[in-house]
């Protein structure tokens, strides 16, 4: 990909950023929070894609980082009286440390075993958040002091989304990304070529844990109440995976498209079929995974609409 294409893509991103920046004044409160959560899912899906799409290590417990970020924000704001912005940094740092601590041993596992271990790790984190009640208030959850925040959280999420997209794009088009892809395609061969696979896997995993933590923190300050079941919700991990798959795992544009489509579908079914929306959602997951495992990008490539070899 040449310089001209990079410039074009950057211009597209800038245009998107500016549009979203001027949007909120024109939107109702409901639509504004709809856009905010769509942006949040773009962040989550893109981050998940760094470890699971680029590197091929399917994380089934990524919600752990999101929950850690949410708790860091809620505890520091509610119990220690911090301003909410610096808590995002603390959450990101904490998630990074946890990612290294979990990732170092667990990334030795392959395929389904990594997936299961991550699921166990995330559920374990939820139990810790429930049990350690002196720090987290346990099952009662934490209420944050309310403030007029719908604008602040909107812009914070927008900035985070742009940063995440730039980061994912940079990784996807760098030697770093190529090395991650090499690990995905054949780890032994990558190792033999002199790629320090342990380091690259850990770096990808840590990066992919940091952004969800910030998103979790912003979300906590947006919703103003968190408890363990809501921020360590398995279905958030599923959503990250499904969004990436729907758009096309291992690409940069795929998870973005997937997140926008899937969150919109979710919201529409929720509004229109309040009793059966989770059944419809489950069916949707089954159908996408069964008939479109390579996602929309794969679909497009098969028909010659997009360049080959972009989707895992």
């Amino acid at each position, binding site marked *: 990909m040449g310089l001209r294409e990079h410039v074009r893509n950057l211009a597209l991103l800038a245009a998107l950023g500016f549009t979203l920046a001027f949007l909120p004044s024109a939107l109702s409160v409901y639509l504004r929070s709809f856009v905010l959560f769509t942006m949040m899912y773009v962040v989550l899906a893109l981050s998940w894609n760094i470890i699971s799409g680029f590197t091929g290590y399917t994380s089934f417990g990524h919600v752990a980082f999101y929950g850690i970020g949410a708790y860091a924000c809620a505890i520091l704001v509610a119990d220690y009286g911090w301003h909410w912005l610096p808590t995002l940094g603390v959450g990101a740092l904490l998630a990074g440390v946890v990612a290294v601590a979990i990732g170092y041993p667990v990334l030795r596992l392959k395929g389904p075993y990594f997936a299961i271990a991550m699921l166990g790790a995330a559920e374990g984190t939820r139990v810790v958040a429930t049990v350690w009640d002196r720090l987290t208030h346990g099952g009662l959850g934490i209420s944050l002091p309310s403030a007029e925040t719908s604008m602040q959280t909107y812009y914070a999420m927008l900035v985070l989304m742009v940063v995440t997209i730039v980061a994912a794009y940079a990784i996807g088009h760098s030697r770093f990304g190529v090395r991650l892809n090499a690990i995905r395609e054949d780890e032994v061969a990558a190792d033999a070529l002199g790629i320090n696979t342990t380091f690259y896997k850990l770096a990808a995993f840590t990066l992919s844990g940091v952004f969800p933590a910030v998103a979790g923190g912003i979300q906590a300050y947006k919703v103003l109440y968190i408890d363990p079941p809501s921020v360590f919700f398995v279905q958030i991990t599923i959503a990250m*995976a499904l969004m990436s798959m729907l758009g096309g795992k291992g690409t940069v544009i795929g998870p973005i498209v997937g997140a926008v489509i899937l969150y919109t579908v979710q919201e529409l079914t929720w509004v229109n079929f309040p009793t059966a929306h989770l059944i419809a959602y489950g*069916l949707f997951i089954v159908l996408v995974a069964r008939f479109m495992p390579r996602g929309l990008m794969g679909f497009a490539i098969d028909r010659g609409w997009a360049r080959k070899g972009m989707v895992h």
Partner: protein
Amino acid sequence: MEQAVDSSRRLYLLASFLVCAYALPFVVGAWAGTVRLDERWLANLATVVVGGLMQGGVYAMFAVGLTLIFGVMRIINAAHGEMVMMGAYLTWVCFFYLRIDPLLSMVLTLPVAFLIGLAVQKLLLDAVVGQPELTALLITFGLGLVMIYTTELIFTTDFRTIPYAPGTLQLTPSIAVGQNRVISFVMAVVITTAVYVFLKRSRLGKAVRATALNAEVAMVCGINVRRVYLITTGLAVALAAAGGALVSIQFGFNPETGVVYTLQAFAIIILGGRGHYVGALIGGLMLAVLENLVSLMVPNGTAMVELAAYGLMIGVLLIRPGGLMGVKED
């Protein structure tokens, strides 16, 4: 040779990890003051261990279903717990609407579950055998969601129980176990043994094991692998439903209880050695005993019980991914 040495060293490591895991509740209990070394507490402890073994039979049974699917197709069935839950509801319907005894109703519910398994295999899983693990994980997770919320629509989220054999059985003067637990343990032993004999002795069972070992070679030997996949999933769902029937006569259940069973079954098959039949049986007993020890001695027990399963699972994965039975790495 070097690998063999390494593998036996790891078995010792795993053994010491398990000893520590079992010692931990005692240590925590001693620190929190819930351990008293008088006669009554020791009787309590014995009761809990025996009760755990009884409960372990049921765990083993639904873990066996999961391990079968994994062993043969390398697919993680994330809807396994929901299939257990479905079995419990089928039994409940038979009990309250058709007035059939819960154990007798298995004659009715297991064939139904088997057919459901065939449908799941034909429609969903056949296409994804050999694909990256995420595809099958998402399909089965989606299936689980559909099952949970369909059940919720029909039966609401209320907890259901089946009053069955509520008496207790006095084993020794100080140890008593609920009759329903003993009955379900015996049933679990009978059913898992029957399936074991089927796998070991019958032609079809041998075909299943051959496919688990190496699907391609099995195919070359003239085994219809697709048919083996069908039978495997049918059998696994039937085993899950049987587990559900046994769960229903001793615990309350609602549509969302399945998730916990899925995770417990994961932990069990990892502990025993995934795809390993006898390993799943041993793993089931071990997890149940550990859970019961935790809930006896550790304060804040109910949440900590869950942590026991996750901790055990991750520990085993890190120390010896092949589990107790040392299944070879793929």
